[in-house]
């Protein structure tokens, strides 16, 4: 409160206008995010003004160009040294531009680009009334099974809104791991979540299941967001600041008094611990770690498969990025408190994901539980609290996302009359009917299982090595045991595809357009290259492995 305040608690004299400085925004360093947000807004305008039949192509163009341009911007920034020597804080302290942020943004943009190809696929479903259709509902607002829906289908509507939604989600994901204060973190969380809730509800087939998944995801996600927000409030009460760096200093004890208004609560450890717990809980929800994983199987199963692939890869990358930054930048001074808890979460996540996956009979649910187990493996690297912990997690995330997108892209190909044939029994004998598709899927499964010469092995080795170096040898042992358990169900799918007799009324493998083919090919290529010659990418992740604060 300024000295010129007059006789009232409700009014205060404003400082002279001349004192307000324009905020300094480093547009160049924020270019990737700005490009994506801009393109998303253009996408909305395209929805409004471009005629219906040209929308699909216009949206695809906008999205591809935006993602590619944003990726180019990330590469340019990294080449300019913003990941290493010039790393710094931008946008008045709201955004960090450093190695991990750029690495993760690059990963998110590339996965989003590959995911976009699966979004744009229009050859898998048979044409409806002479119109080519994609995986999304003709008209999301039409009640499933209603006359309105039939009309929408007859008219050949397609939900081209998914493209701007995807871009908005990507924008949130780009900011999420780069956020450098808690408020930005929360805004990014919401920006990435809300479009995802919507996209989950948009499946063209099995619409009720899809809507159910969206509602579940939304409700649980809203709870998680509320927890996060509560945690942020408590941390603010503890430290008197939203900024990561300041909170870290208060935790360390190097800064004693920040805000006299909070003198009553500042430095109260109860606030710190509860606030941390709630904040981390919100992030663990997003990565799907046990015990905050309950939404994963239902949502992964119900959502349109391209969306599932996108969620399982890009969201995870963004959320782990944010988690890393919180734990490594804000709370390193508290690691003796959070490490035991995270140990427990990691162990339970690895084991529960692997064990429960064994009983699954639906391929999408199986991949969902497998993603839970993988979240556990990544957490093992997260809690190493060493530079190699950061770089191993970065590498794992990059390796894992492409395998995931590729695997879900293959799932979209195996179809019967009811759309995608996701029940495992229908995959029997796929290796006889379509050896190539089955072999590609086998490659992805082997990568998930962490068999050498695939990217999954290199990633797993990196995180386990980091964990062992960080003194978490028991975690490594639990990790390899759950890997062995997990291998069982990946192998089971391979057995089913190659060694079982095909069913007479089994599904067919649709021949996709070059879009999905590209997505799958990129997935296989990355899986093999990162498996056989990971050195360049490990170096990249290693160089990027330092946070700025």
């Amino acid at each position, binding site marked *: 409160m300024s000295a010129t305040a007059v006789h009232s608690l409700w009014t205060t004299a404003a400082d002279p206008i001349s004192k307000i400085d324009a905020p300094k925004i480093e547009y160049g360093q924020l270019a990737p995010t700005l490009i994506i947000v801009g393109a998303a807004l253009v996408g909305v305008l395209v929805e409004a003004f471009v005629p219906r039949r040209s929308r699909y192509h216009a949206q695809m163009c906008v999205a591809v160009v935006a993602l590619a341009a944003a990726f180019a911007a990330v590469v340019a920034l990294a080449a300019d040294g913003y990941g290493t020597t010039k790393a710094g804080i931008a946008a008045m302290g709201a955004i960090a531009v450093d190695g991990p942020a750029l690495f993760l943004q690059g990963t998110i943009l590339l996965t989003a680009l590959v995911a976009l190809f699966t979004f744009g696929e229009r050859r898998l479903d048979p044409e409806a009334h002479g119109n080519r259709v994609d995986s999304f509902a003709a008209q999301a607002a039409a009640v499933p099974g209603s006359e309105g829906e039939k009309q929408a289908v007859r008219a050949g509507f397609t939900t081209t809104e998914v493209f701007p939604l995807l871009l908005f989600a990507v924008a949130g994901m780009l900011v999420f791991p780069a956020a450098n204060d808690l408020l930005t973190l929360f805004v990014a969380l919401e920006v990435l979540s809300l479009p995802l809730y919507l996209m989950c509800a948009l499946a063209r087939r099995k619409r009720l299941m899809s809507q159910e998944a969206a509602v579940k995801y939304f409700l649980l996600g809203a709870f998680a967001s509320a927890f996060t927000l509560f945690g942020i409030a408590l941390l603010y009460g503890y430290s008197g600041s939203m900024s990561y760096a300041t909170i870290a200093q208060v935790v360390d004890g190097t800064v004693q008094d920040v805000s006299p208004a909070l003198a009553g609560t500042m430095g109260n450890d109860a606030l710190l611990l509860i606030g941390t717990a709630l904040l981390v809980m919100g992030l663990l929800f997003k990565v799907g770690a046990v015990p905050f994983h309950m939404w994963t199987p239902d949502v992964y199963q119900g959502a349109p498969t391209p969306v599932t692939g996108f969620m399982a890869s890009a969201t995870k990358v963004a959320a782990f990025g944010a988690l890393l930054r919180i734990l490594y930048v804000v709370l390193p001074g508290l690691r003796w408190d959070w490490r035991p808890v995270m140990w427990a979460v990691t162990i339970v996540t690895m084991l529960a994901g692997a064990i429960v996956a064994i009983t699954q009979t639906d391929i999408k649910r199986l991949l969902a539980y497998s993603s839970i187990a993988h979240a556990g493996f990544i957490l093992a690297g997260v809690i190493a609290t060493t530079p190699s912990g950061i770089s191993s997690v970065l590498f794992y995330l990059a390796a894992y996302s492409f395998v995931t997108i590729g695997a879900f892209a293959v799932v979209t190909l195996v179809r019967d009359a009811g759309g995608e044939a996701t029940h495992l029994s229908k995959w029997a004998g796929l290796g006889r009917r379509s050896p190539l598709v089955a072999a590609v899927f086998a490659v992805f499964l082997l990568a998930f299982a962490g068999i050498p010469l695939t990217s999954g092995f290199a990633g797993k080795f990196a995180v386990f090595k980091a964990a062992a170096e960080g003194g978490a040898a028991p975690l490594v042992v639990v990790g390899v045991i759950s890997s062995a358990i997990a291998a069982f169900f990946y192998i089971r799918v391979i057995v089913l595809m190659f*060694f079982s007799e095909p069913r007479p009324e089994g599904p067919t493998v649709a021949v996709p357009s070059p879009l999905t083919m590209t997505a799958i090919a990129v997935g296989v290529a990355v899986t093999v290259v990162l498996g056989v010659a990971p050195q360049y990418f*490990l*170096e990249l992740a290693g160089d990027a492995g330092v946070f700025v604060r």
Partner: protein
Amino acid sequence: MSFPLLTATAVLPAIGAIATAAVPAAKRTAAKWLALLFSLATLVLAIVVLVRFDPDGDRYQLTESHAWIADFGVRYELGVDGIAVALIALTALLIPFIVLAGWHDADPLETGNKRWRPTQGFFALILAVEAMVIISFEATDVFLFYIFFEAMLIPLYFLIGGFGDRAHEHGEETAATQRSYAAVKFLLYNLAGGLIMLAAVIGLYVVAGNFSLPEIAEARANGSLDMATNTERWLFLGFFFAFAVKAPLWPLHTWLPNAMQESTAPVAVLITAVVDKVGTFAMLRFCLGLFPEASKWATPAVLVLAVISIIYGALLAVGQRDIKRLIAYASISHFGFIIMGIFAMTSQGQSGATLYMVNHGISTAVLMLIAGFLISRRGSRLIADFGGVQKVAPVLAGTFLIGGLATLSLPGLAPFVSEFLVLVGTFTRYPVIGIIATFGIVLAALYTLVLYQRTMTGPVRPEVSAMPDLRVREIAVVAPLVVLLVFLGVYPKPLTDVVNPAVKHTMSDVQKQDPRPEVEAAK
């Protein structure tokens, strides 16, 4: 830079695998010839390795070293000692015979499906396994070894699960179920072993900072790398567990009978004669080389397990009704001998164990491949379904007998030399163990001769009366191997010359000397 001979030896079959897999569905025969050609070319390269190798030279020869994954401290390092050379030669030698023996094993039943190319797949997978086995014999970088040690499970898994005997006593449906059960069991056992080893590999990195076997062994020997006793023991156990599953050692052996029973005879040979040798070889190279103190610490326990393997395998072999299962249990007994020889920590024991690996490879190949021919003729694997075969197919019966006699280590055939060396080597240090192990030989005589008697002698059963004798292709498979068995039985010197200096190095790793003979000690 000199020609990377070791890399070439491993890469050639890999190229062969890709080439074979790429052959169109209609050109099945071309795929077979291509596979045979590549396996023979690999054999030529292996012979070049054998010739270029100087037994009295450096410990690791023909070395290659390139940067690979610097972040993990991993280098692409190859090098062979005498033991590795012998086993590479064995591998390269057996694969052409395996290919030839499996000539018709993977012909598709239905020819309508243009995309389904089992024949190409079968031979490509065999060559892929060969490539991976050879590179794991060559690798002197622990990580490099580990990668191929694990990766070879995948082609093997498809070989076991995808291709079985045409004839199955319970019909095709059951056969498929049992096959995939065997394949999954094989994979899970070995994968679990491998993953435990992965934890130990990571632990080794944390302790040593790199993966180079010569460097670590050197650092351990001169004291610059100190491992805490407990650490060393845990790491040893992690490695040993994986190798013991692969070898296989009792009680981790149960995948082998299933895998051998359900796969076709050539694949069964590939598993026991070639792939399992990687396990015993790795014990010798990595367990003893990296963890000498822990190896000595574990010796009593390992010897007991080995002896149990010998006796248990032999006893169960006696009781089998299925020919392939019988051979599988016999192999478990033999692997017990190999592991006993390695851990007896005497130079006779370890030379014997290395020779044993080679000889067991050849003798099992003979026995198993002929058993495969026999089974495909009759359409049954059960011993009781045969009888009097020697009257209708004398050549088949005769070679089968030679394979059997080799298995029971008849003097004059190659396995005798190695078994004798192993027993002598064990006896000088652990007489009780040696004595118990000798009973394994007695039991071996029982199970092989009873097998021969029940299947080949006696009245001719009506089902086998029309059984044709060995065809030219089959004789071409068996004859060279039989000749080799006799040759190495009478004159094992070429092999021992290569192996002995390498064994000396290993003995110096563990800082053990042979016990002095009693007579000399008494003087």
